[in-house]
């Protein structure tokens, strides 16, 4: 991957990350932390590919751990975030 392009992607992704949450209310800090925690659960995909390419038992073992942890990150992150956000069920305007 071209280093310069990677840098641009990095820069733009950082801007995007910063901007999309720049006006978050305090009350959402924890849910948002949890939500972004969920998003990086996509590491699961990396783990899967690593495991998929693993050949030695050591690689397989570590790969297995990677997938296991990644899946836990994704699944747990989702459930917890979802539960926290249930508090904000949009109230009907009377």
């Amino acid at each position, binding site marked *: 991957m071209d280093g310069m392009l990677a840098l641009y992607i990095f820069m733009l992704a950082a801007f*995007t990350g910063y901007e999309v949450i720049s*006006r978050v209310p305090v009350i*959402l800090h924890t849910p948002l932390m949890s939500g972004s925690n969920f998003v990086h659960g996509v590491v699961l995909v*990396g783990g899967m590919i690593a495991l998929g390419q693993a050949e030695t038992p050591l*690689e397989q073992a*570590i790969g297995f751990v990677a997938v*296991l942890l990644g899946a836990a990150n994704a699944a747990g992150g989702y459930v917890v975030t979802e539960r926290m956000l249930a508090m904000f069920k949009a109230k009907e305007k009377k």
Partner: protein
Amino acid sequence: MAIKWLIDASYFVAAILFILGLKGMSSPVSARKGIVWAGVGMVLATVVTFLTPGMNNFALMVIAIALGGAVAWISGKKVAMTDMPQMVAIYNGMGGGAAAAIAAVEFARGEMHGTVVTLLATLGALIGAVSFSGSVVAWAKLQGVMKKAFRLPAQNAVNIVLALVTVAVGGAIVIAPTVDPLLVVAFFVLALVLGTVITLPIGGADMPVVISLFNAFTGLAVGFEGFVMGIPALIIAGIVVGAAGTLLTQLMAKAMNRPISNILFVPMAAAGGGEAVEGEQKEVGAMDAAAMMRYASKVIIVPGYGMAVAGAQHKVWEMTELLEEAGVEVVFAIHPVAGRMPGHMNVLLAEAGVPYDKIFDLEEINGDFAQADVALVIGANDVVNPSARTDKSSPIYGMPILNADLAQNVIVVKRGKGTGYSGIENALFYKDNTRLLYGSAQQAIGEVIQHVKALSV
């Protein structure tokens, strides 16, 4: 080729969904939609990954996913609301661990191409491992598994030395032409220890900020491993979370009025006592006060002398109107001797234009506090002091008080630690369900108004 295309496209869509999801989650109005979008992105990315050409170990993969996913899902469902922060910590730690593990697999395969890639892999491994062990410690402390804050002598020096050594070992790996397994193992061990040592001395009150920091770390680590493996979806998701997490950490630290450096480096000195003293005055920001009321069904406002001093009556009424527009029932509870003369509150509320049918006196309203979601006490003190009910030695013993303390939540607006007319402390301010909104009432309610408006778009 078609499969490659499908996979790439799916990752692309997933990346977009992640960004939109985060964006959604930053407003209460769209927060739930946000997590769902992100969830869809996750499922999509995971499913298409199975299609990646040339992969093995599918059985292991499925088992790992099923196992990790199921355990996390169930524990996430079961955990009490109050234990959420530590759950976030532990899941986040797992993400960090996964990132580190990926790096480890790559090291094990010895397939690193070029310095940059090795550098990124190593960085990711370092950050991921620190985040992993640090998060586990954070979890343990919040969960009560680890009871006491634990501080090494010369903690900061130890931290720095340890960090330098770890980085040095990492540097050696990057520079070395081939991967030296010993070095790698040492590196991981050092990183894990580093995370532990950094986190150990941090007090419970500061934990959420630290967890958020580790969360940003994990994001970065995932992003770096994404570079290593050449999966843009990982890069984007990781870096976006890294950036968002960093900002969030700053915001959280700011909301707590503690610079991050303070939290990490002088935890015992400034915040040490935090956990020990029971019944602290817990602060709340205007935004959260606004959200608590905006999403309440019934709010009872208890004005007192402080509202008069601040001349906040107009603002209070404006806030009331906004809340009512949002469907919240708001009423005023006037204590017989609130203020400094009979009818003090009446004069002011009338001036602000509060209709008489929203104003109730003690006898009419005292039964309603238990049904109120929020009691908003504005510059009142003695008239909501529960010691009047029980403490015979109190100078206000025997005076009937407004039962603000029975409300689900109590928000008290006052400028600082000032007492009321009778000059005594007020146990209400230390109650579990009480939050203090500091500031002169005029200005504090003004801020609340702004946030209520922002929430009512």
